[in-house]
């Protein structure tokens, strides 16, 4: 696989950010193929241990495509996802992992360009850290 790219796991939500990521494909807004998506129901249901598992198994970065204010399960979603990220960041520090390897951003259902931009800048950051 291309050495010049970073391996990223994206947690994305079935109803909101999945459609945005799918649309990025539809519009052929290219991003590195080392980016993999796992769908969840809501970004505030991601367990920190899953994120840590991804790092342990070799992912360079984890990106949480949060629902933001569009979440169909309630207003508290963004805040709760933020808490998960915060908690995981602390655990990462304790384990000697650079916290910036976990990133979160809110994506709406048509935020395809935003997704690709985020992934590209995240990839750059991860590659810079590697060097």
């Amino acid at each position, binding site marked *: *696989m*291309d050495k010049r790219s970073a*391996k990223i*796991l994206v947690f994305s939500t079935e*109803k*909101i950010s*999945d*459609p945005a*990521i*799918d*649309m*990025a*494909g*539809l519009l*052929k*807004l*290219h*991003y*590195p*193929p*080392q980016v*993999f*998506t*796992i769908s*969840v*129901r*809501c970004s*505030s*249901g*991601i*367990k*920190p*241990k*899953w994120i840590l*598992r*991804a790092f342990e*198994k*070799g*992912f360079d970065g984890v990106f949480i495509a949060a629902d933001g*204010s*569009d*979440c*169909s*399960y*309630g207003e*508290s*979603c963004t805040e*709760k996802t933020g808490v*998960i990220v915060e*908690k995981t960041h602390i655990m990462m520090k304790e384990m000697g992992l650079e916290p910036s390897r976990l990133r979160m951003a809110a994506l*709406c*259902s*048509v935020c395809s360009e935003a997704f690709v931009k985020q992934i590209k800048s995240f990839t750059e950051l991860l590659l810079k850290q590697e060097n």
Partner: protein
Amino acid sequence: MEKKLGIYICACGGNISDYVDIEKVKDAIKDEDCVILAKTTMFACGDSNQKDMDADIKANDLSGIVVASCSPKLHLTTFRGVSERAGLNKYNYVHANIREQASWAHSDNKTGATEKAILLVKAAIAKARLAEPLVPFKIKSQRSVAVIGAGVAGLKAAIALSRMNDEVFLIERESKIGGKLHDLDTISPEQISGKELLSRLEEDLKKEKNIILLTNSEVVGNSGNIGDFTLTLKISGSKGETTKEIKVGSVLVATGFNSYIPADGEFGFNQIANVITLPQFRDILRNADSKKFVLNGKEINSVAYIYCVGSRQVKGENKYCSRYCCTAAVQASLDLKKKYPDIQNYHFTKGVRTYGKQELIYKESNRVGDIYIQFLDKKPPIVTELDGAISIKAGDLLSEKKEIEALADLVVLVTGMVPDKDPSVGSLFKLPKGRDKFFNEIHMKLRPVETVIDGITIAGTCQGPKNVMESVNSALSAAAKSHSFVSKGELELEPIVAYADKSSCNWCNACSDACPFNAISKIEAEGKEVASINKSTCKGCGMCLPVCPTDSIELISFTNKEMESMIDVLAQ
């Protein structure tokens, strides 16, 4: 018992196979654990492949299938149906999206796309190995529909639902019904006014016994699910505000549009007298003296129309075409001409879009001598005051891009449609919006009136610009869809809910605090206090999962085992 999996990799008639080497994918996964059959197919969703899958499942006694094709948004239900018909529990089918997330996203990198597709299919296989058969919950459905908005779309939808014997709550925030019909004059193709249309609708409405009309009413609260929504309404009356709760099985949103309001100074708007918008023009024309057309003390002998104001913007945000306005403006100019035959009309357009039969109106306009100028994006019209008249200058595509100047006594800005300025309904129901900020349907062709929120349909111009006939078509379609949600009296709900492990749980409140739906309560079990999750109120969001200090909560089909096995595979 060991799972027996069948894997189907779709070529999508080249959409996938042009970029992903599907034979290579098949070879890479055919020896995975539990895989006893792996095939490539031209169209996985096609009838012949569906028949093959059915036969394969039966012949090989498969206990799970994976289809690697397009986004599950398109064909999840298709393949769940195939599984069920073949006697396989539909939750034993797992989907891998190798089109939107591999072949198309990485069409610039065929090797990368193929390698990614292999891992995506392997991850789906990992999940399929662990997938459990599930039984959907059945719930009783309310045989009633809430229609929000009583413009032409909402009214037609309500009448149609009532005629299909559903109970209807027609909710309108204004004191009167009819919405924008009040502002419309001649509506093509019938040459009938909005007022006349409305009075016909009012007659129809009176005959319907199943409709409860609630004016001065706003929806302020929403809870529940498809089949059983509870809406809270705020109703303003002479004695102040009251609230009311209604129960409905489906919600049909028909909240309409607003007309674009130009910024101060946009083509002279609010700065030059006699520069007005199309809705203002129609209003003035309707009430104008029949002999002489006078506005702001000036007799009007010539009118210039500037099209695409607030639509197809080069600099602004509204990139979309508002669809209805070309015909509406040409029609209004014909109405003017009919009343005052000597007035000269000048149309400054970006190309006239009187599509379909509406072309006949454009032909008529040309016949009566209206002048059309097609301006260039680089040289949009400049509107200035000149010796008591208004000058409009623009580069004209139709005459060698020369600058053309017209003098007019009145300038009409042909304003487009923008989404309703009141965001409350959209945010209350969490309706996703498109790039144009109108509400988004699931799929323009497969499910054009449904939203990602189960049980909520959209009709009319809240989905995007439409003329009256198109709004009515979409309203009747949405009514048929909402009717199908409530007509059977029973609905299936996805059994994707959370459950707590009583042996490791030591009640601490964190999960019940996190749950937005009050689905978690404390019970006594195994001699201690533990959490219990109510299956019928849990919506499966998973917010309780990460807050549990003992990791005692799992979400069905998103369990630790399933998630971790997928992560492990993708990390390879």
